[in-house]
C-alpha cells in the first residue's frame, strides 16, 4: 500500500463523511419530522431542536388501519416469493446445468420490460374473472417481480456448485431430480437467502401493480401511504411517520442480510 500523507487522509475522511451525509440526509429529515408536532414542522426557519412527540405514530397506527395493510403487504410478498421459489429453483437449476442461455434471457425479459404493458391487460382480464381486489391477482402480479430475481440469482449460484457433486450421486443410482432435491438444494442456503431478501423487498416496495389491482380489502402499505398523503396533505408529521413505518422493514432486512443484498444487486452487472 502507498503511504498517504496526513492531509490527504483528512481530506479522504471528510469526503467519506460528506458522501454519507448526502445519502443519509433524507432519512434523517424524515425521521426527525416524524417526531415533530405540526407547529414544529411548519416552523420557519426549520427547527433542528424540538421536543419529540410520538403523537404521529399513535395516529398512523391507531386510525389508519395500518396493521391490516402491513399484513397484506407481508402476505402478498411472502406468497409471491414462496411460489417464485417453487417455479424458479428448478428453472434456475436447468438453466445452469443445461446452459440454457436463451431461456435465461427470456425470463430476464420479465425483469426488464415495463410493468405497465402487462398491467393494463391484467386489469381487464382480472376484472372479467372477478379477481380484482383478491390476493390471487396481487400474488400473481408480484410473482412477476420475484420470479426473474430468483431465477437470475439462483442460476449463477448453481453455476458455482461443482457438477461432480450430483454426478457422483447419479453414478450411485440416484436420479438427477433426487440429486437436485437432496444434494444441491441443501447447499443453496446463501443463494436462496439473497434471492428471497431481494425479491421480498422489491415486492414490498411495489406501487404500480398494487395501486391498480388492490382496493380496500387487499390494499398494501405503499398504496395506503400514498392515499394517506392525498387526503391528509397538510399533516406532514403523520405522513412522515407512515413513511418511516413502511421503510423500516426493508431497511431492517437490508441491515441483517447486507452481504447478500449487495451481492444480489451487483452480480448481474459485474459478471459481464
Amino acid at each position, binding site marked *: 500500500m502507498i503511504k498517504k500523507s496526513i492531509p490527504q487522509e483528512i481530506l479522504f475522511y471528510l*469526503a467519506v463523511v460528506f458522501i454519507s451525509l448526502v*445519502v443519509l440526509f*433524507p432519512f434523517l429529515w424524515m425521521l426527525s419530522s416524524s417526531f415533530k408536532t405540526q407547529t414544529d414542522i411548519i416552523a420557519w426557519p426549520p427547527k433542528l431542536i424540538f421536543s419529540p412527540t410520538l403523537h404521529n405514530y399513535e395516529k398512523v397506527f391507531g386510525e389508519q388501519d395500518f396493521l391490516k395493510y402491513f399484513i397484506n403487504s407481508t402476505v402478498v410478498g411472502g406468497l409471491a416469493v414462496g411460489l417464485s421459489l417453487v417455479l424458479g429453483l428448478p*428453472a434456475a437449476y436447468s438453466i445452469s446445468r443445461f446452459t440454457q442461455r436463451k431461456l435465461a434471457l*427470456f425470463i430476464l425479459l420479465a425483469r426488464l420490460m415495463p410493468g405497465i404493458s402487462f398491467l393494463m391487460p391484467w386489469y381487464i382480464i382480472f376484472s372479467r374473472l372477478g379477481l380484482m381486489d383478491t390476493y390471487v391477482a396481487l400474488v400473481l402480479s408480484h410473482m412477476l417481480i420475484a420470479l426473474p430475481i430468483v431465477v437470475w440469482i439462483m442460476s449463477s449460484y448453481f453455476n458455482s456448485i461443482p457438477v461432480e457433486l450430483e454426478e457422483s450421486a447419479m453414478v450411485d443410482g440416484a436420479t438427477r431430480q433426487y440429486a437436485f432435491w437432496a444434494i444441491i438444494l441443501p447447499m443453496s442456503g446463501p443463494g436462496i437467502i439473497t434471492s428471497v431478501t431481494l425479491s421480498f423487498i422489491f415486492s414490498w416496495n411495489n406501487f404500480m401493480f398494487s395501486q391498480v389491482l388492490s382496493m380496500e380489502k387487499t390494499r398494501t402499505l405503499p398504496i395506503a401511504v400514498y392515499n394517506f398523503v392525498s387526503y391528509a396533505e397538510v399533516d406532514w408529521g403523520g405522513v412522515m411517520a407512515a413513511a418511516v413505518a413502511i421503510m423500516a422493514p426493508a431497511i431492517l432486512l437490508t441491515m441483517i442480510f447486507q452481504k447478500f443484498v449487495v451481492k444480489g444487486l451487483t452480480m448481474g*452487472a*459485474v459478471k459481464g
Partner: protein
Amino acid sequence: MHQPSFVERHLRVIFPLPAILFIGLLMIFPILYTLALSFTSWNLTSGAPLRFVGLRNYEQILTEPRFLDAVMRTFGFTIFAVLIEAVLGTVVALILNRAFIGKSLAKLLLLLPLVATPVAVGIVFNLFYDPTIGLANFALSSLGLPQGLWISNAASVIPSLIVVDVWQWTPMITLIVLAGLAGLSEEPFEAARVDGATQWQVLRYVTIPMVMPTILTAVILRLIDALKTFDIIFAMTGGGPGYASETLNIMGFKYSFEYFRMGQASVILIALFFFVLLCSLGIMKLRASSEN
C-alpha cells in the same frame, strides 16, 4: 448407472416448464393482448363494444403533441439522470475503493436508498421541495438566493425529479463499480507503477479502461429502469403541473386507468415497450460480446 426414466430424460424441459408457462401466461399473452387492443377502439367506461379501427389509434397518438412531449421528456429525464448517476457513481466508487475505517458501514449506507420504498422517498422529497416550509427553499434563502417553486413549476419540475432519482440510484452504480474494481487483478497496476506512472495516469489509463465494461453494464441497466420511472413521479407530481412531468409511463397509466381509453393507451404502452426493448437488446449484445 441406472436407466434414466422419462422424467429424467426430459428434465431440461420439465424443470423450467412451470416458469415458462407462468411467464408466457402473465407476460407474453398480455403483451400480445395489448398489441391487439391497439387496433381497436374501446372505452371501458362508455360501455360501447370493442371496435376494430385499424391504425387510427396510432395516427392519433403518434401525432398528438402531448405524446411527443412525453417521449422527449422521458428521454430527457432518463439521459440526464443516468449520465449524472454514472459520473457521480463512478467518482464515489473510485474514492471509496481502498481500505478505511468504517468501510462496511459506508457500504450499508449506500444500500439504504436502493431499498427505500420509492413512493415514500417521493413523499419525503415533497416535504423537502415544499415552497413555504421546505428545506430546499430554506437553503436557498440562507445563501441569499431567490427561492424556487421546484416541483410546482413547469420549468423546474423535471430537474427537481432528476435530483430525487440521482439521490436514490447513484449508490447502485457505486456499488456495482466497487464490486467490479474489487475483481480486477493486481498485475496491470503493479506494472504501471513499476513503469513510473503517476496516480493520475494509473487511474486514466489502467483503472478506468478496466472497469469500463462494468460501468457500461450498470449504465444500461439504469437506462432501462429510468425509462420506466413511475413511482416517484406519480407520488410527487402525478405528471403535473399540467403535463410538465408526464413521462410515457405516467401518460400510459392515465390513459389506461383514469380515462379508460384502452385502445389509445395500448399505443402508448407499445411505444414505451419498444424503447425499453431497444435498450434491453443493447445490454444483451454487450453481454454476449463480453462473454466471447
